[in-house]
């Protein structure tokens, strides 16, 4: 079994109002010195069998089409041990 983690973040130039709201809440709860908060998404894919090159390429393709919108988001793929 293989595990692939896809992290999706808004591109730096895209305003993240949710991150801003969290930043405000952190300050209100006493955490000082927070200069920025960005909120993203993490997808954990549990895959049966081994992760060969073809399947990894498929994951990349879907990470860039379904899981993220390349107009506003970047993604990073990590393989981790299941």
């Amino acid at each position, binding site marked *: 079994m293989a595990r692939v983690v896809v992290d999706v973040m808004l591109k730096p130039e895209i305003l993240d*109002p949710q991150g801003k709201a969290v930043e405000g809440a952190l300050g209100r709860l006493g955490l000082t010195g927070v200069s920025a908060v960005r909120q993203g998404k993490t997808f954990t894919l549990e895959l049966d069998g081994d992760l060969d090159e073809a399947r990894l390429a498929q994951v990349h393709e879907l990470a860039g089409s379904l899981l993220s*919108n390349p107009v506003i988001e970047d993604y990073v793929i990590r393989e981790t041990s299941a």
Partner: protein
Amino acid sequence: MRIGVVTFPGSLDDQDAARAVRIAGGEAVALWHGDADLHGVDAVVLPGGFSYGDYLRCGAIARFAPVMGPLVDAANGGLPVLGICNGFQVLCESHLLPGALVRNDHLHFICRDQKLRIESTDTAWTSSYEVGQEIVVPLKNGEGGYVADEKTLDLLEGQGRVVARYLDLNPNGSRRDIAGISNARGNVVGLMPHPEHAVEALTGPTTDGLGFFTSILKGLVEAS
């Protein structure tokens, strides 16, 4: 003239869109998300709502619905398509229109009667208006902020593809007050506000929205 209205799981405004088509004098044809067939319609409306619960991103899952395959091909071939609100988000996710819709900059869901200025009448859906005409139609969205890179925004402005702009107040942080855009050919239009809710005096703030539906019907009649 037969105008298809697609229903996705979670579509809300499909009935109002169909009613607007009928009030404008057209025949509304219900299209189903799981049916990869446009049933020979002359144009399509992608209605507002929360397709697939807005999960993942607004419109991101609807984009891969079976009906979208033939729809994208037909739109690229010139079929008139109007995406309203969630429909606009689906058109952007499908890359039929550039840019994306993101969460409102103030984080609140907004519902108000919104003043717009029609900026382009060179589209299949706005030919009944005058350039510069001001209209009031309902607006209701949580993720209606239109974003695109500066180059794309300049291209849209330069080619006259900004179809409508917010007046008086920018309700969601949209870049350059953009409320709606078209593709280069003008057959595909995406609009965040809801013209289908402003087609008769009993239920709408105005009847200003009717022009989108009379535009397409007039255009189709003239073309036939």
